[in-house]
């Protein structure tokens, strides 16, 4: 059975990719200068205590031993514990080494599980916005190459792509939240808080979709089977909606896969600007706090997400075009 073989092969490949990513991240984090224990325990902690904590956490073992122990946990679904974040969710600690809450540090898995749905929501919404903006413009442009819809598509994508997202974010926040009071901007207290950052992201993605669509629709419209379809007696609507769009969907699908992966892994600037409690903000904080287990966890989860999205995209592509062979 094709689908079973496909899934087994791709999931095995994916597992290998995730393993390699983990090994790379793990090693790199440990060879860069800076002792995370010093950060955890605080600048005032005595050297002996730091050494003791480090020994206790196994941070002085050889890297391959640490890695083996870590991967052993990952396989069982345990991504380890944050170095700096307490389980009770209190503010970022570490200044006081004898803080009693430090004993119960937050599980990395929990931290990620809290933020991933938020990012997913943001990513999906911006994807929907982007498609709503880009599909009509892109398809019209592709159907009339060289005419005004094509030029409109080109100009609009040029404008969109030259707007820096941080600038657009701030301007939209000023306009829609501060002046017009239409949408909330900062933080998260409900679905409405997703709309503004999603809009900014959509403007960023839309040009890619427009460009891909105009090119692929124009390309498909020039093909023989479209040309001959009218002589076969099909109506223009049938030709465009049943044949042209379906055939131009593959490049779009691949693009959406890449874009979606990027949205999941790295909407750092936008989440930071809007103080949106997603994976991006979590990543920024983890990096700034040198929270090794958290960085590792995020890396593994996003790598796995990339792999899964790719599998889904390829599966959809084969469903649309049976000639494809992954």
């Amino acid at each position, binding site marked *: 059975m094709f689908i079973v073989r496909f899934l087994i092969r791709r999931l095995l490949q994916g597992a290998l990719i995730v393993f390699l990513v983990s090994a790379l991240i793990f090693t790199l984090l440990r060879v860069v200068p800076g002792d995370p224990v010093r950060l955890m325990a605080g600048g005032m902690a005595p050297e002996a205590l730091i050494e003791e904590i480090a020994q206790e956490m196994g941070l002085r073992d050889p890297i391959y031993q640490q890695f083996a122990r870590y991967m052993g946990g990952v396989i069982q679904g345990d991504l380890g514990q944050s170095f700096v974040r307490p389980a009770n969710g209190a503010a970022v600690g570490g200044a006081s080494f004898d803080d009693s809450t430090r004993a119960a540090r937050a599980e990395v898995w929990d931290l990620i599980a809290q933020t991933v749905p938020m990012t997913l929501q943001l990513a999906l919404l911006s994807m929907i916005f982007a498609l709503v903006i880009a599909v009509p413009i892109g398809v019209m442009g592709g159907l009339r190459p060289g005419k005004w819809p094509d030029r409109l598509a080109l100009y609009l994508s040029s404008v969109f792509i030259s707007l820096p997202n941080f600038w657009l974010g701030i301007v939209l926040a000023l306009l829609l939240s501060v002046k017009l009071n239409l949408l909330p901007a900062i933080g998260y207290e409900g679905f409405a808080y997703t709309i503004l950052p999603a809009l900014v992201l959509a403007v960023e993605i839309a040009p890619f979709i427009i460009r891909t669509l105009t090119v692929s629709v124009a390309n498909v419209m020039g093909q023989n*089977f479209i040309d001959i379809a009218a002589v*076969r007696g099909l109506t223009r609507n049938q030709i465009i909606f049943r044949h042209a769009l379906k055939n131009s969907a593959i490049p779009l699908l691949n693009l959406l896969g890449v874009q979606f992966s990027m949205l999941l892994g790295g909407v750092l600037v936008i989440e930071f600007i809007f103080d949106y409690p997603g994976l991006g903000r979590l990543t920024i904080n983890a990096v700034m706090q040198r929270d090794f287990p958290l960085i590792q966890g995020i890396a593994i989860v996003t790598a796995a997400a990339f792999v899964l999205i790719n599998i889904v995209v390829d599966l959809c592509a084969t469903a649309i075009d*049976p000639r494809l062979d992954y």
Partner: protein
Amino acid sequence: MARDDVLAGQILLSVRDLTVQAEEDGKSRTILDRISFDLNPSQILSVIGESGSGKTVLARTLASWLSVPLRVTGGAIHFRGEDLISNPKFAKSLSGREIAYIGGNPAGALDPTMTVGAQLVEKLRAVRPDISKSDARDKAIALLKAVKIPAAERRFYEYPFQYSGGMMQRAMIVDALISDPALLIADNITQPLDVTVAAQILKLLRELNSEFSTAILFICSSLPVACDAADEVMVLHDGRVVERQVPAALVDAPQHSYTKGLIKELPTLWAEGKDESGTVKPDVGQPIMSVHGVAKHYETHGKSGWALVQAVRNVQFDVFRGDNFGIVGESGCGKSSLMRLLTGLERPDAGTILFQGENVGEASPKRLRQLRRKFQLVLQDPYGSLPPQSSIGSILEEPLIIHKIGSRAERRDKARAIMAEVGLPDNFYDRLPTGLSAGQRQRLNVGRAMILEPELLIMDETLSALDQTEQGKLLELFQRLQEEHGFTYIFISHDLTMVRQVCSRIAVMYLGETVEVASNERLFFDPGHPYSRALLSAAPTLEKRRYSPEKCLLEGEPPSPIDLPPGCAFANRCPHAFDRCMAETPKLLSRGDHALAACFLNE
């Protein structure tokens, strides 16, 4: 015929003074010039003419498929008495329903992402919305059976890429006939197909014509095919109808000078008194190239896992010095894979290729480069085989540079000498190949191959991109070069008439095997393999056939080289096949005088 007949509905299609012009840059060029003809119901009319004579424009005009800059500027097309030109909306409503069109490119004619069946149903329901989905499906399957597609129920659910070229053309015939049209316009439909498949399609078209009484306008550029297919042949020249006759009368007594020239130029296969003076008698002694038991397979992987394509399985022949050796076969028979093996571009999995006693298949890369000075290759595609950014002079000199021959000035002189020899004007030396015609490009390709003074030239379909006149000129050039330099040629080709004209000995390939090797005369008059006979029976010619297609070829397609049946590969299409052919593979056996054939009937 009188206008009254049109009104009475006797005549299906009546074209009067149809004029089509192309308007470019304010200038208008007449493509079709006052064309008039009538077509009766269930009549087959061939339209023939060279490229540029307006055949395809005529087909498109009738199918209401003209696009800018083409425009109808005069005349009328009456379909069942109603004018299509003055009523484009009516014309549009006919297309796909009453007037069906089949083009010459079946490979790209259907959406690759939908099953053939779904598209047949879609088309029928687009022009006849009153037909239910299941009725449409039943009708499509019935027609797929009528055009002899095996396992039609299963094929209905397959995608276009799972069909071979011939199958796809059958499916397109179904697509055209499914709405029971009164008129079928077949525009060059056999052109991309192999001769045996094309012969089957023609036979099919005639059967369908009598079964469904559809009138057919058969547009084609080959006079023999046109005469084979039709009740009457109409000759188009420079956008005008120059004559119209029944095939036999046309061939016997052509009226117009253009038709006369066309028939005179047509090469013959069996006519007596073949001009033998030009061909150098090969010296049958030590072969210059000796191929024995050569095989090559390629691995592919698809949805069903890994598969082995057996492109070349068992090839055996000797080429003697001064030979014009022909290798013929249809597409997919392994000709091109064999060419790659002969030239050392790839190494065979089994067997030996001896060039002057040295094994090309096992030579070291360095030795191979030295050997290549003595055997050179000329490719099929005149456009893709020349670097567009190099001047003609430097294209010719490059082989000399690669083999480190001569000084700059010597190379330059040599290139100019070669240009003169192949008939390229001297002032082309600094030009880019961009402006060259296909024929000139092939001359340049030949020049590039012969600048190293090789002994053997391998021509892989070198002439198939050229028209008949140009082919003739190049063949003359080849002959002259052979007389002057003593070249030995291997012509790899699908074109039997060309091979008949120039080759002294011929190998016939089928599915990766040489099934027969024989001298020219012997192959055409006494073929030793049923496939050779089938090939001869399907060759387009106006002569009285020595072998009739009905007796030489069974319905069916060649098996796939991935999934070869046991026994003889031709058995499933061979009218003489018996039990042993299905179980055992026949070996090449000598029939005397260096002729070989692989068939049990010769034992």
